[in-house]
């Protein structure tokens, strides 16, 4: 597989049954991007942003799905869940703001850095959220 004009599409289900497995989709994408010869800095930016989104889907939303599109120009990661939605987007974007439970914090997450980190490492980020329906986070990193 190599980076060509053809769009490479990947799909992963994110399930919440096993917290220890969270991050497998991001790990697979990281491996694929490295294999395609994408620069290590770009690979790392995609991996970190996607991993944060994947963790969010597990801890807030009982899992979801990840769809990735790779072109020579950019890498687009779409993480969608059918969770509770984000009631206050402005607050959620503030570093340190979190609605995660104590049990999630004990696992090392829920520090309120997820969405700010995703924004930090991507060129474009879109969050589409509807209360009671779910959230879709789109992350774009330019090559």
């Amino acid at each position, binding site marked *: 597989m190599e980076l060509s004009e053809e769009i490479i599409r990947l799909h992963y289900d994110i399930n919440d049954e096993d*917290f*220890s*497995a*969270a*991050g497998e989709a*991001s*790990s697979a994408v*990281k491996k694929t991007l490295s294999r395609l010869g994408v620069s*290590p800095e770009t690979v*790392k930016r995609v*991996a*970190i942003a996607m*991993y*944060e989104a994947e*963790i969010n889907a597990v801890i807030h939303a009982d899992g979801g799905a990840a769809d990735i599109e790779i072109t020579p120009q950019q890498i687009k990661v779409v993480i969608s869940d059918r969770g509770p939605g984000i009631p206050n987007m402005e607050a959620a974007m503030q570093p340190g703001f979190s609605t995660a439970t104590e049990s999630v*914090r004990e*696992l*090392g*997450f*829920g*520090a*309120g*850095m*997820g969405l*700010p*980190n995703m924004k*930090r490492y991507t060129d474009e980020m879109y969050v589409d959220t509807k209360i009671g329906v779910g959230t879709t986070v789109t992350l774009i990193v330019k090559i």
Partner: protein
Amino acid sequence: MLKVREIVKILDAEVLTGEDQMDMEIYSGCGADLMSDVMAFVKESVILCTGLVNPQVVRTAEMMDIKVLCFVRGKVPGEVILDLAREKGITILTTKHPLFITCGMLYSAGIQGRGVWN
């Protein structure tokens, strides 16, 4: 800069995985129990010191290209975590020192916390 073997000596640490990586050079370090805080600052050639023991520590290291993890306060991870680390080529150490002391010892020996992108 310190080699992993020097870090092992300084921290009186035990090597649990990556015994063949003792000559790896470490320039930077971070100490945290919150993985999102770790992911907020990208560094190169890093040792991550943490008191948190679960597979997501190894996953976080993988995403960040962190090659050395040191569990503090005498924590020894289980086989699931060690197997994941072996699979990802990550060296795992464990030291009896608490997090603050561990970081202080490494800082005093020349490891700094400088980030590369920030």
